[in-house]
């Protein structure tokens, strides 16, 4: 999906789009998020996993700047954070 191919992209059992950007440094998780969210229908959500220290503030800032909805965020048991973002067109 991206030039270095480290991002995995999958559809979860409930139809949620998943992006695993763990191990990728900012701004790559945000670029992954931006690229994946345009494939969603308005109102659908995407789940992003990231462990770069800038991911938390930047996911929130990106949602504000691009007028998307940050639904929730929580720490992952294995390190990093999970973000759920809803597409708003």
């Amino acid at each position: 999906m991206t030039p270095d191919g480290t991002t995995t992209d999958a559809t979860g059992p409930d139809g949620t789009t998943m992006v695993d950007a763990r191990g990728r440094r900012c701004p790559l998780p945000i670029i992954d998020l931006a690229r994946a969210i345009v494939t969603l229908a308005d109102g659908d959500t995407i789940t992003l996993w990231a462990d770069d220290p800038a991911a938390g503030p930047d996911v929130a800032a990106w949602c504000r700047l691009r007028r998307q909805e940050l639904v929730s965020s929580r720490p992952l048991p294995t390190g990093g954070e999970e973000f759920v973002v809803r597409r708003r067109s």
Partner: protein
Amino acid sequence: MLLDAARESVASDLGARPDEISFTSSGTAAASAALLGTAAARRRAGDVVVVSAVEHSSVLHAAAHHEQAGGRVVQVGVDAFGRVDPAAFTAPPGTAVASLQHANHEVGVLQPVAEVAERLHAAGVPLHTDAAVTVGHIPVDLRALGADLLTASAHKFGGPAGVGLLAVRTGTRWRSPGPTDEREGGRVPGFPDVPSIVATAAALAARGSELDAEGPRLAALGAELRGRLPTLIDGVELLGDPSPAGSVRHICAFSCLYVAGEALLDGLDRAGIAVSSGSSCTSDALTPSHVLVAMGALTHGNLRVSFGRDSTRADVDALLAVLPGVVREVRARFGAADLDPTL
């Protein structure tokens, strides 16, 4: 005495009395002494130190030191411009001292120091202000600001490295946090670096005489940069207060979507342009700037442009000629060339 003359000169430039001014070995040392010395003298009032979330690391490190020694620290948040709300900058019971910068070092926003000082004084709490960004750049008057302690750094206004200014207003309770001797009014031990202090006083006096001309000139450079950036690059967020009265005008900060700050610095460096970044990739700890995080600003692709007395219109033109291409190239390298960066 040269030292006395330098002290009188600096005091006069800051609206202070000569015996209120001490010279330290750096702005960092001055901020530490201001905060920890007031906390020490007011130990019986309490062990809480209140700081804003966007203070310079010197103030935050002094607060962390206080905490490690068993004291408490309360941080006050900021709005999207990076400014504290005076009504929210309150001192909880047991507050020994509070610290609020005069202007922010990363985004230039001016803080409501006088209003905060007035509110704190009503509660009997003294205020330190870190004026490293403003001294020598805009008029700074200790009494007009209302702060009880003020610190600054000589190299920030064209003076030599290795000299900090510590102003402690008469009547402020202060006790040295470390051993002292008879020098610098009992506030800074050890023999002072007289030649550098004399150079500091000369630099500050010279800056004072240039302020009327330099202020508007640098403000025009900053306005030019802020005005043209969004027209040349998509996905740029200008940081700080857009109102000219709300910021020092020699600092212009912004963040570019989908680029790494480090790659921007490299690209500009190749063109001979030196700026700064608060992005995590440019920090030794790989953590983003605490100022940008506190503001809720985008932390990647962050740049800070500081103008000085040598800066010219040609420098702004050179930056604006190079930056759009650098941003395009970095976005392509990160696989973001096809993303819509419009804000």
